[in-house]
Each structure stands twice: as structure tokens, then as C-alpha cells.
């Protein structure tokens, strides 16, 4: 430890820096109410299973790569093998597939760690 010499600060004139109770208390209460509301908050984001996601499910989806964006959804892969019937069915389904009505949704079962 390197001792730093005292600058010309007079302790008798220095602010005591005692905090008032109420500002901290009021902010803490606001925080507590927000946290409680957040824990019970149903977001506008859909889940894969249907229904809306809880805020905790949405937060969990961030860390487990559980968010699905409609723009990034890729069509199903073509069937393997040389079955022309299956190939035709796949081509028809891909052609007739409508754009999803959702923009983003939560896969609550996702378990992949976020690709940090």
C-alpha cells in the first residue's frame, strides 16, 4: 500500500454524508413493487405452446436461445430418399405455407445456451 499524503481537507468542515432514510426507502419500495409485478407479468410475446409468455419465461428464453423470430424461421428440409410422392407433398406444403402471424415467440422448452 502506498500512503497518499493528506490534501488540504479540513475534517471539521467536511460533509458527514449521512443519508436520509426516505429517498432510499421510497426507491426500494418502488423496486419491490416493480419486481413483484414483473414476476406476475404476462407479456405480449406468444409461446410455441400457445398463450402468452410470463416475464420469467421470456428472460429464461434469452439465456437458453429460446426466442424464435418469424423472419429467421427456415422452411422444413426436403424429405430424404427418392420418394417422388413425398417430394411432391413437401413442395406443395412449402409453396402453400402461409407467413406466420407472429413475429417473435418463446420456446419454453429450449435448452441451448445462448451463443455468447
Amino acid at each position, binding site marked *: 500500500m502506498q500512503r497518499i499524503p493528506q490534501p488540504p481537507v479540513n475534517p471539521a468542515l467536511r460533509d458527514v454524508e449521512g443519508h436520509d432514510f426516505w429517498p432510499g426507502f421510497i426507491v426500494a419500495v418502488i423496486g419491490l413493487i416493480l419486481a413483484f409485478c414483473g414476476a406476475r407479468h404476462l407479456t405480449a410475446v406468444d409461446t410455441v405452446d400457445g398463450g402468452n409468455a410470463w416475464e420469467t419465461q421470456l*428472460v429464461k428464453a*434469452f439465456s437458453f436461445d429460446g426466442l424464435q423470430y418469424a423472419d429467421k424461421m427456415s422452411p422444413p428440409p426436403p424429405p430424404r430418399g427418392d420418394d417422388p410422392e413425398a417430394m411432391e407433398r413437401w413442395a406443395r406444403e412449402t409453396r402453400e405455407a402461409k407467413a406466420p402471424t407472429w413475429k417473435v415467440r418463446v420456446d419454453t422448452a429450449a435448452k441451448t445456451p445462448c451463443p455468447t
Partner: protein
Amino acid sequence: MECPVPECRQRPPTELGRKLKRIRPWVQTGFLGVWLAPLGQWLHGIPSCVFHCYSCPLSSFGCPIGIAANYAALAPVALEVPYLLLGLLLLVGAVTGSLACGWACPFGFLQDLLGKIPIRKVALPAWVGHTRYVVLVGLVILLPLILGFKGIPYGDQMISICRLCPAGALEAGLPTSAQSVMAGNGWPMSWFKTLILVAFLASALFVHRPWCRIFCPLGGLLALFNRLSLFHLRFNPKECVECNLCRSRCPMGVHVDEKVNVSGCIRCLECSTCGALEPCFAVPKQAPKPTMPPK
């Protein structure tokens, strides 16, 4: 440099200061067990109040900065208010200020350990702390908000701060890469991220808590509450002998002898060793009792 106050050399540290200094590493170790709990993955839905990567295979709770950046990235598609995150940060900030940085943050603890390696430390000017707010507003909020889930043009990552975060490189990238190397699949972590990790580890040897002092957006946010938090440090002028032990002990380079509840402080309480700075909780002031008029 010689201390100008002759009596300070004889002055022993206070009992409280000694006790706090002794128990702090143990408290930090205990909190490490909370944030890195292998069975705690079900807690990922709840944000923590410290800086640690939720992609770590052992992590419990969510990284508040990662969550904030994800909310910002989600905003162009679905505007959601992170009530839980805001509430928890307000609550922790209003009650303890940046105490979590000094006593609970696993990333800060790692930097404390690296800082114990006896290499002469470089002193940083106080203004570098403002960079934390640039990171908070620029990288955590604005960049994901503007670019949304399309992300920055670097790989397929959508969150900008996570791309640059050394905690992510250390807690998630390093174990994953080590596993991959052991399986014979090479080093998957990008050279950019590896470079950030190496630069961070090297800088922690020469600067005390470099991440916390220059870049940490969470530390910057919690430190804003230091001016009003219920837990705070109070100056007792009667105990001050002008020895300046408080400022000399401060690892964060805060001018403790002038003002202590400032944004650069991580509330490690090292400065309380001298006895003139006392950790305390704010209590409601009692109204003065009415005195009986003299008969």
C-alpha cells in the same frame, strides 16, 4: 512517500475494519456458490444483481446486462418493459448501492484475486469511470435497439455487448472451448473474443479491477444509487486524524478523503479501516421530543 501525520503509523486499524477485511473474501466465495450453482439453471428466469454470464454451464440466475440488451433487441418487434429487472436493480441499488460489486460480484472477485499478484499497479484517472455509462447507453441499449435482432454484421450474434464481454469469454467461451479441444474439435471461440479475454486477464494484473472501473455498465448503474442508498458510509469528523489511511487503502482510486459515497466506489469498505468512515444504514429521523416549558 512518508505520511505527514506522525501518529498515523502508530494507529492500528479499527476492529470493524479488520473484521470486514477478513470476511470479505469468504463472503465473495459464498456468493460464487450462489451464482455458479450447477442445479440453479431453473433460476435463469430471474435476473441477478451482479455481472456474470448466463451462458456459463454452471450459472444460475440471469445476467442483468444480457437481459437488458435482449429486451432492447426485442423492442423493434415486441416492445416489452423489463419490470422484474428494473425492480430488482432499483431494490438492490436503493438498499445497498454498489455493495454487490464489492462483496457479491463473481467477476469482481476474480479481478480482486488477480490484483493480489504483487505487480505494481497503474493508477487510473477518475474520469475513466464515465466510460461505463457510454457502454451502458451505447452498447447495451442503443445498439441492440437500432439493429434489433438482425444484429451487428459479425457472425450470427444479435447482442452486441455479449460479443465483447470478457465475462462471457471467461465463463462460457473458455469452458466450451476447452471441452471442444479435449474432444478434438479445435478452438471454437473466435480470435476476437479470445483476444478480449487475454487482454482483460493481462490488464487485471496491472490495474485493480479494470473491468469494473472502465467498462462495467452494471457497476455504473448501481453506483448511481450510492448517493441515496440506505446502506452508506458516514464520515465521523471526531475520529479523523488526517492520516489519509482511508484514501491510501482505496483500491478503486476514489478520493475518499473528500467524498466517499460517489459513483467510483464499489463499497468494498476497505476505507473503513481508519475508523473515521463508518458503514451504516439510514434510519428515519425521530421527531424531537417536546420539552416542557419551565414553570
